[in-house]
């Protein structure tokens, strides 16, 4: 075909990650266990290089490469940046937990591969590329969940695998069906031809594809693995799997929904799933006593908020910037919360956080910024995200979604405060408020503080951030 646009440089960030993953694996095989930090450095260097490569073309006009199968635009650029930096932070917060581990270098390899899968998902503008991205992101995930080698982790890995396999098959089914209906798999062709195809068959195909992506996003109905994996996996793994795959899945979903012709409208479906996710996630988080599991359910509800701009994709100019802003905000805030739990791995119930504010004020500060941030309290960056998400929903003609977001936000406050309250409880005995009561792991603790500060600064600098994510539509 003429003008294939085979520009390998467009995939430079992913190439960096793949090369990084392979080098990490090789380096890890030859290095003695005590010098595995070299592998960590290699992985980090790959992520930094990939971030730079992703940031450079950010201002450029959107373009498609490889015969229209992959799009490089602001969405892809922002998704890449968020995913890479999130992965970098995950490696940072795992610095204590993973160092010297028997599978240290393999972990980094899986993280890098999973991240590249997520960004391939984000840029896919062809169903087959979407499929590739899905599996590239999913298969490392199963390994990451199971790395902890505890019974809980094994169960979580099994659950993740089974659900992933099931919804992966659904996704393939949907892709096949849509291919059969349109005769092609590129979004451009689907957009043009699905309008003439039988509506019910198209809707079945689209629903199946959406179902697959819901697994990656960790939203209803593909959410069952999230709380188990968040609870059972190691700290770094949990932080990774609740942030990076979502970035890819949600941007991919946005592209899909926006591309579909008017006769095959997936927006109502996404809207219903959004409300279901936020409501179910919040209600289920109520009774949780393990902070990790509580966060797991909280991410389910957060995906619900993230699906709101997808449900008004193309109906308002606010939708895409709102999604990207909220994605970045969610990633940094969620990582803060997971970093706090990773820094105190032995504290596995909410009551054991009693006295944290007296013992470790900085860590407690990070926790408050993270949890109130997840609620959307200003001036954290999630506030800016939430405001724009609500505005997008309203402007896009779905005011009911805006109301659902607000009601759920109030509900979520309950369980986040259940965690904050013991940490700041008064009158605790000295042995709970002296620094020795809480000995945070240094790397994870540092990441918690850094990301908390970043969450505040990004909130104050929401203007420039918005400019970064805003100029999306138009161009070539």
């Amino acid at each position, binding site marked *: 075909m003429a003008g294939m646009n085979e520009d390998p440089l467009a995939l430079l960030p992913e190439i960096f990650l793949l090369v990084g993953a392979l080098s990490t694996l090789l380096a890890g095989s030859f290095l003695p266990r005590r010098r595995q930090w070299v592998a960590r450095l290699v992985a980090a260097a790959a992520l930094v290089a990939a971030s730079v490569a992703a940031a450079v073309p950010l201002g450029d006009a959107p373009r498609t490469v490889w015969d229209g199968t992959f799009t490089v635009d602001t969405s892809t650029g922002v998704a890449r940046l968020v995913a890479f930096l999130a992965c970098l932070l995950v490696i940072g917060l795992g610095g204590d937990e993973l160092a010297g581990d028997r599978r240290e270098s393999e972990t980094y390899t899986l993280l890098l591969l999973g991240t590249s899968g997520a960004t391939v998902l984000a840029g896919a503008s062809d169903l087959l590329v979407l499929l590739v991205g899905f599996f590239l992101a999913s298969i490392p995930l199963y390994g990451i969940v199971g790395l902890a080698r505890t019974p809980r982790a094994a169960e979580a890995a099994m659950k993740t695998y089974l659900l992933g396999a099931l919804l992966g098959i659904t996704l393939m089914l949907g892709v096949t069906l849509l291919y059969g209906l349109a005769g092609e798999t590129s979004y451009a062709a689907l957009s043009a031809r699905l309008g003439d195809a039988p509506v019910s068959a198209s809707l079945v195909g689209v629903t199946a594809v959406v179902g697959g992506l819901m697994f990656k996003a960790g939203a209803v109905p593909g959410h069952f693995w999230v709380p188990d994996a968040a609870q059972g996996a190691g700290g770094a793994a949990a932080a990774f799997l609740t942030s990076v795959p979502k970035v890819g899945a949600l941007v991919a979903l946005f592209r899909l929904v926006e591309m579909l012709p008017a006769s095959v409208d997936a927006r109502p479906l996404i809207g219903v799933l959004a409300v279901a996710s936020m409501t179910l996630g919040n209600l289920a988080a109520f009774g949780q006593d393990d902070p990790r599991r509580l966060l797991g359910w909280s991410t389910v509800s957060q995906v619900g908020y993230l699906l709101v701009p997808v449900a008004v994709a193309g109906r308002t100019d*606010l939708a895409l*910037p709102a999604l990207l802003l909220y994605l970045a905000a969610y990633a940094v805030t969620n990582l803060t919360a997971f970093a706090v739990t990773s820094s105190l791995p032995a504290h596995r119930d909410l009551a054991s956080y009693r006295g944290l504010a007296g013992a470790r004020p900085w860590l407690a500060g990070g926790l408050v910024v993270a949890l*109130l941030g997840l609620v959307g*309290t*200003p*001036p954290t960056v999630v*506030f*800016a995200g939430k*405001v*724009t998400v*609500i*505005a997008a929903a*309203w*402007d896009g003609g779905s005011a009911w979604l*805006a*109301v659902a977001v*607000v009601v759920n*936000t*109030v509900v979520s*406050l*309950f369980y986040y*405060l259940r965690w904050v*309250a013991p940490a*700041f*409880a*008064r009158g605790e005995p000295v042995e709970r408020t002296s620094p020795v009561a809480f000995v945070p792991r240094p790397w994870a603790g540092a990441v918690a503080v850094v990301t908390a500060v970043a969450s505040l600064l990004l909130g104050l600098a*929401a*203007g420039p951030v*918005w*400019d970064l994510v*805003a100029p999306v539509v138009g161009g070539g």
Partner: protein
Amino acid sequence: MLTVIVVLPLVAAVVLAGVPVPEGVARWSWLAVTAADLALVVGMWVAYDAPAAGALAYEEKVPWIPGVDSSYHVGVDGLSLPLVALTSVVFVACAIYALHGQDRPRAQAALFLFLQFTCLGLFVAADLLVFFVFFDLSIVAMYFVIAGWGHGETAARSALQFFLYTFLGSLALLLGFIGLYLLAEPHTFDMVVLANQAPAATAGVRGGLVLAAVLLGLAVKTPTVPFHTWLPPAHTDAPAVGSAVLAGVLLKMGTYGFVRIAMPMFPSAWRAWAWVVLAVGLISVLYGALVALAQTDIKRMIAYTSVNHMGYVVLAVGAAGLVSGSDDKARQVAVTGAVTQMVSHGLITAALFLLAGVLQDRAGTYQMGSYGGLAGPAPRFAGMFAVGAFASLGLPAFSGFIAEFQVFTGSIAATAWAAPALLGILVTAALFLRAIQQLLTGPTRGSSEGFADLRRTEATAVGSLLMLSLLVGVVPRPLLAVIEPAASVVVDAVQR
């Protein structure tokens, strides 16, 4: 200038939170910063020139999120300047009162300075998002005040109730703000533009719904009946300085929102809803007074009189929406009275709550029945309390009289239906006289025995608040001269 006033307490809060200074240094630097801030506000007031209608003085504007046309836009006018001054005064009084505080003074000072930052920021905000940011942050800070320094078994629970209730209100407010943003063409969060444009006027039912969301948020914060149930437990368990700030400053955020946002931005919807607002105000006045009469706990009693006093404000702004059947002048008097009442209530109630805190500090109880004849052992306390009580029930020569007189003149001129609110004054008079009788007169008994009189710091804090109330009551002109032009702008805006 304005930014300096707002940010100074924040900077001090961060420094105090981060640097482990000795306790005494923390207490005195808290006082020094609040005093410096007050000095700046006084300077600003002296140099203040009433801005033109629809404009602000000391305006500053820096883009924040240009994508949604939100900017850090601040400025003051006759509505906000008195409240900025009130905030500074109340926080100075709290800093003086807390000079003898023993419970983690450094953290307390940092938290209160942060709270002051949010209050000042809210009153000078001229952008809905910035307004909301400060609104929400004030709730967070107050939550930590109640949960961290509250007393009693139920402090954590009251703090949670306070947080959830007012946070719910704040989200309704946010929804309303986003609605306003989307109604405006082009979309903007700028309050000055929105007030001049009044986009909801042409929006019919949607405009009404957006106003309903805003009103719900403000009504929870004010609080008006039936959204007041968070207030008494929050006050009962809050520390004295926390209560003083909560009643003196935070409640004003709700009523300030009425005159700053609801009235000028939704003129037609406001006129349509004026009777409802008036009725809610009337019910708050009467219900608050009657429930206060039934209290045996002095702090709960003062808390319910706050519902009553805020009810006068709501009554007045409701009456200002009744355009037919009243002249401009009457409605302007009503709005002026409403703003004056905010200032007056802030001064007097803060003083009363500080005095109630002294009871808790000395004898560990707020039950009026367990005291008696306090005038004997604690003459200074008795004198201050009596003055505060008379000021609160609206005795002439105090600010409360000036405020309530204007509220009633303006409201009753608009509609005779406002007249039953006069009964509220009667009931509050009765309950304050009864409280004076129970606490101060008679033979010294129960918890009054061995009651240590006010310390010099406590007397200074309470006395300065009451002196200011007296000053406003005797020489109201400087305050009214600032408020009146702004009140007439609001009244004109509602007529559009």
